[in-house]
């Protein structure tokens, strides 16, 4: 199945590359990403510095790899947080119905009224200082999307007779939720999580571009892009490296998301 779909292969490859880069960046970057060396300031790509160096003489490849680790960690944790809390909240809300459901929906709609990035910026300001600030900020910003998807799916499931059958057997609501509802929401949740990972990655880059990510000496894609603006004419590689990383990663993740959706569609239609 995977091998028959070029977009699936491309997506998986890109995601594997990102994870590999993050691992190298976190464990063994070629140079210390924060090491300043004015002798090699703004040098173009060479055999010593494959992607060149920046205005402080730091190795761009090492900074890119270490930035990947940060970005992937933030995006991954955000996705995990949103997926688990969103799926549970959405499933609970859809199953409970009544005023509980209405409260959850109203709250989520209130969050949705703000653009996710604006909400995340506001949250970061509130949580400033904590290294988990971007994760929490993005998590809150994206939670409503997951809740809505899961809740809508649960509402259609709730009308299906196998949920009624579970009640007839005398199963408790909690058991019905865990055994019958959650497993049947895995497909839409996975597809949504993949998109979320992409959004979170982009949003983390945007936050650090605006200087709201990790504090300056640490590397991040958005931060590198922001720094590169002053030297764009003389050192275009500074902008190209994080730019290509961001767009390539997003493209790969979206391809993988499309593949997931097609896969589950076909499986359920079967």
């Amino acid at each position, binding site marked *: 199945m995977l091998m028959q779909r070029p977009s699936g292969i491309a997506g998986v490859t890109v995601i594997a590359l990102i994870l590999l880069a993050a691992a190298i960046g976190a464990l063994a970057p070629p140079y210390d990403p924060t090491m300043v060396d004015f002798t090699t300031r703004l040098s173009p790509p060479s055999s010593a510095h494959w992607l060149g160096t920046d205005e402080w003489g730091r190795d761009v490849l090492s900074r890119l790899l270490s930035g990947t680790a940060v970005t992937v960690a933030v995006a991954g944790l955000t996705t995990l947080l949103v997926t688990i809390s969103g799926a549970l909240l959405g499933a609970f809300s859809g199953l409970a119905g009544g005023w509980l459901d209405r409260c959850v929906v109203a709250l989520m709609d209130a969050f949705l009224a703000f653009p996710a990035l604006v909400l995340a910026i506001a949250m970061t300001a509130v949580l400033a200082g904590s290294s988990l600030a971007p994760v929490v900020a993005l998590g809150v910003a994206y939670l409503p999307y997951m809740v809505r998807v899961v809740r809508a799916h649960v509402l259609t499931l709730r009308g*299906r*007779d*196998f949920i*009624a*059958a*579970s*009640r*007839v*057997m*005398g*199963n408790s609501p909690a058991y019905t939720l865990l055994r*019958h509802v959650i*497993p*049947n929401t*895995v497909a839409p949740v996975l597809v949504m999580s993949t998109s979320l990972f992409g959004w979170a990655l982009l949003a983390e880059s945007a936050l650090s571009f605006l200087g709201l990510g990790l504090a300056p000496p640490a590397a991040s894609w958005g931060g590198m892009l922001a720094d590169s603006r002053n030297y764009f004419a003389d050192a275009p590689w500074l902008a190209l490296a994080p730019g290509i990383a961001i767009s390539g990663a997003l493209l790969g993740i979206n391809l993988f998301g499309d593949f997931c959706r097609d896969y589950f569609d076909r499986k*359920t239609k*079967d």
Partner: protein
Amino acid sequence: MSQQRDPILSVEGLCIATRDGTRIVDDVSFRLGAGQVGALVGQSGSGKTSIGRAILRLLSPGLAITGGAIRFDGHDLATASVAVMRGLRGRRIGAVFQEPMISLNPSLTVGRQMMEALLRHERITPRDARERCLDMLRRVRIADPDRCFGEYPGKFSGGMRQRFMLASVLTTRPALLIADEPTTALDAVIRKEIMDQMLDLTRELGTSVLIVSHDLAMLSQYSDIATVLHQGRVVEQGDTRDILLRPRTDYMRGFVAALPRRVEAAPTGAGARPLIKVQGLDVAFPLKRRTFFSPHRTLRAVKDVSFDIAKGEVVAVVGESGSGKTSIGRALVGLNRATAGSFARTDGPHLKAGGAEWRMPGVQMVFQDQHSSLDPQMTLEQLVAEPLRHDPSMSAAQRLDRARDILAEVGLPGGFAKRYSHELSGGQRQRVGIARAVVARPSLIVADEPVSALDVGVQRQVLDLMMRMRDAYGLSYLFISHDLSVVEEIADRVLVMYRGRIVESGPRDAIFDRPHHPYTRRLLEATPRIFPGGGDSYELAVPPTIAVPAPAGHAYHEPGEGDDDAPLAMITIDGRHQVLCRALT
């Protein structure tokens, strides 16, 4: 097929294939004369619907006409241009489909939709078009056509919508009407009304009708000639009654033999001690308030219903949709909350309404929609083992063992255990539903229309299985159905529901042979039933019912709105045969 009249529609060697070349209709030919009523008959997958759609050139994407000709009005519809087809559809060929709920556009008024075809195809002023449509609505006996004209379809019942469809299709006086399962979604009484109206009208207009249906008994009342299809091929062609009542081919003999019909009642210990007693059951649903300030209102779906069921007995609940029959079943299994009444086992708990849903041990359910009642993420053995999880004496492995045993018993042995429900056919899924209901050895199974969605042959197998399970495990069934012929075959006793009340109850033979209540009689008269004749032949008849005066001092009560205060009583006719009456004062 011999025909004196020139055929108006002539299908010659029609082939329809899917994209990968599988022929789903193979070399089908038939002819339909002017003013004649023809039928395409077959089970699901026989290709009948595709032929109907091919004539309209509205085949679903992925299907294509690969051979043959469809002659109509001097055109070959198999190859006619899109422009020609557009001119024919709606003007010369009309179509009515099964789902009146989805074939009308919910966001346009009934009138707008009716006038569409007229304004499109004829030089006519909107005023005249409106008059023609109103006239047609009157002819399909719609009480207040002017008011209906400006309403949206959502306001009306399925029967009314099908009437609108019919009226709007016939306003252009087409030469050919294609009716694809036009009444399958409707109740018996309404079905008969609509079919009668459809054929009266088309006779008047001289329109030929091609009915596509699986219901041979219904067709034999209305159609002159029939073409029977099986897996895309013609099995038999000819006079409809002949085909049904004197089947010549093996296929038709098997088909007719599988139709449900009355069998001699097995001795079930009439008068045996009841096992289940339901007293004064009421089920009410809160209605949505139109505004926040509107008063709370409720809909009483079930009103003061009492009955009992003995061990091993099959008690059928019949009635039209909305009569409350499903609500009774769902209340007993705890899916609806009873608002009044009690539910007792003579050997166990006595549950009273109020508070939570009823949870009676030993009661299971079989659902109508086999597709939606099985969790798609579970294997068959997991599905069937699930009801056993409340039995602490069994280990997980023992539960799966038992599940596999029951699966084998319902005819899904060995390798089926590890499969998923989407790999099965409709009939197989319903077997899984029955296995799941039976596995925990319940004493009562509530079966809500368990065979209504199945083809005749499969329906026969599932009914046989249900009866075998009853004999093997001493089960009782509350069998909810709108299909009187199935009920006539398997029920020991029948409860006739109408507008939330039981209007008549009694042993099967009493209800079918000596109905008293006017509603029961209407119901029976709307249902043609099949009786064995001599040898291989059969009789199809609607035995006339005889009006019996109500017991002295009483009048039969027809439930309706605002009758909740009338002093009503179930008056005994004889033995256990009872009918709903109102005391005359």
